[in-house]
C-alpha cells in the first residue's frame, strides 16, 4: 500500500506516492528520479547518501521518508544553478577532489552543510565535518583543498561566481587573489 508524502526538495514542493516503509533515499532515487544521492552501504556507514535536512547533514538511507515531511531537503541536484556549477562543485573540479565520483555527492552535501553554518572553516573543521564520508580512492587532501577553495569565494561573493570556472585539473590552484579579482 502506498501513501502520499509531501516533501520540499531543492525548493520544489513535491507530492509522491511511496510504500510506507521507504527511506528518504529510496523516495529521492526511485520516487523522484533524483539519483545523485548514492546508495552505497545502505546502512549508515559510508555517507554516500548524505543530504541536508533543514540545513543539517543526515544519512538519507536510514531516514524514514516521513521524517522529511514538511522539511527542507537539499540534495546534490540542488547545488548547481541552471547551466552552471556552484562554487563548491566548481572547486572540486578545480582541485581534482572528485576522483572516481561515487562518494562525491555525499561529500559535497556534508561540505555544503558546513559552509552554510561556518563560511570560512579551518582545516580541522573541514576534516571533522567530512569524517562521516568514506572515500575509497583515499585522497582526502584534494577534497579538503576544494572546500577551502570554495570558502575563499565566500558567502558575499557566492552570487558573483563566474558562469564557468576553468575546469582544467592542470590549471593549478586558484588563490584567494584570483578569486576576488
Amino acid at each position, binding site marked *: 500500500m502506498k501513501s502520499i508524502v509531501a516533501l520540499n526538495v531543492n525548493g520544489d514542493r513535491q507530492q509522491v506516492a511511496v510504500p510506507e516503509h*521507504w527511506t528518504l533515499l529510496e523516495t529521492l532515487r526511485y520516487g523522484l528520479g533524483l539519483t545523485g544521492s548514492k546508495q552505497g552501504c*545502505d*546502512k549508515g556507514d559510508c555517507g554516500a547518501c548524505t543530504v541536508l535536512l533543514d540545513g543539517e547533514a543526515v*544519512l538519507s538511507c536510514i*531516514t524514514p521518508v516521513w521524517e522529511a515531511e514538511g522539511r527542507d531537503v537539499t540534495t546534490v541536484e540542488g547545488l548547481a544553478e541552471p547551466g552552471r556549477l556552484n562554487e563548491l562543485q566548481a572547486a572540486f573540479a578545480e582541485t581534482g577532489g572528485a576522483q572516481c565520483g561515487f562518494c562525491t555527492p555525499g561529500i559535497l552535501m556534508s561540505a555544503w552543510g558546513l559552509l552554510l553554518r561556518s563560511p570560512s572553516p579551518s582545516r580541522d573543521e573541514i576534516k571533522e565535518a567530512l569524517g*562521516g564520508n568514506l572515500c575509497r580512492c583515499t585522497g582526502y587532501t584534494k577534497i579538503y583543498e576544494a572546500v577551502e577553495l570554495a570558502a575563499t569565494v565566500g558567502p558575499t561573493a557566492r552570487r558573483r561566481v563566474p558562469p564557468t570556472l576553468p575546469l582544467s585539473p592542470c590549471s593549478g590552484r586558484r588563490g584567494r587573489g584570483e578569486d576576488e579579482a
Partner: protein
Amino acid sequence: MLRLHSYRYHRPAALADALALLAEHGPAAMVMAGGTDLMPNMKHRLFTPDHVVALKGVAELRGIEEREGELRLGAAETLAAVSRSALVRAWLPALARAAGLVAGPQLRNMGTIGGNICLDTRCTYYNQTEFWRSALGFCLKKDGTVCHVTKVGRKCVAAHSADTPPVLMTLGAVLDLASPRGTRTVPVADFFVADGVRNTVRAADEVVTSVRAPLPGPGSRAGFEKLRQRGAIDFPLLNVAVALELEGDVVASLRVVVSALGARPRFIGGLEKLAGERPDAALLEAVARRALDQAHPLENITVDTEWRRAMVPVLVRRALAQALAGPPGGPPPTG
C-alpha cells in the same frame, strides 16, 4: 541494497500519545528516536516491528536545562546538540566529549542521547544481514541457539557499545522512564544487566524521557577516553569514563567505568581503598592495574582481543590525566 520490511510509522507529538500507541500495539511496536541503530538493525531483519513509534517529535523529550541542582537532558536531544550545548560543555565536559566522539557528524545530527543509552548490544555474529546470519545457523542473540563467540556458553556476550552511558554512570546520573503503566526513575548504574540479548532493565513499552545528572562541585573532575579503529566514525572497541572528587591535594573518591568489552558497562571495584591518595603517577598506575585485572574482553568484535585488553590500563591512565588536567565543571560563562 537493503530493503526494509513493511511497517507503519507513527509520529506522536505528545508523550501521552506515544504511550497510547505503545499500549495499543503491544509487542508489535517499537520506539525509534534517531533511528541510527534501529534502522540498520531493521534492514538486517534483527527487528521487524509492525509499528514504529517515532520519538523525535515528542515535546516532553526535548530540551537541555539546568534546574534544582541538576542538568536535565531530554532523551530525544541529538548527540550533536548535547556535544555543542553550552550548559553540557560547562557543567559536564566529559559527557560533551563522549557525545562528540560517537560515530560521525551525520549520525550525531540524527542520533539521540536516549537512543545511545538504549543502544542494542553489538557482535560480529549479530550485526549482519539475515542471509549472512543464516549461513551460520544464526546465533544465541537472534533466531539461533549457539554462541559463535564462546562456542559453549548459554549466555549472549554481545558488547554494550555506547559511549555516553559510562560517563553518565560515573557522574551518578538517573533516567526517567515512562510507560502506559506509569513512571519510574532508575540510576544509569542500575539500568544495565549482563545479558547481551537484552542488556537493560527497560521494558519493551518503556520510554526513556530524560536523563538527569547532578551538577558537580568545585572539586569534581571527569574524563572520557575511547579506542576505535578509525578516529572519525567507529564504534568503541573499548571506552573508559572516570570521575573523581578532589579534597585539598588528595583524591577523596574515584569512580571508573570500563565498557564496550562485555554486555554491560562495569565499575572497576576496589577503588575505595585508594581514597585519600595524592593524584600522582603512582595512583594512576594503581587504578590502571586494577582495571586491567578486572577487564576480560571476548572475541565479540573482529579486532585483536589482546590489544583491546592491553589498552585498558592505557586508556584508564589517559582518562585520569585528562580529568586532572581539565577544569572543574561549573556554570557556562555568561555574556
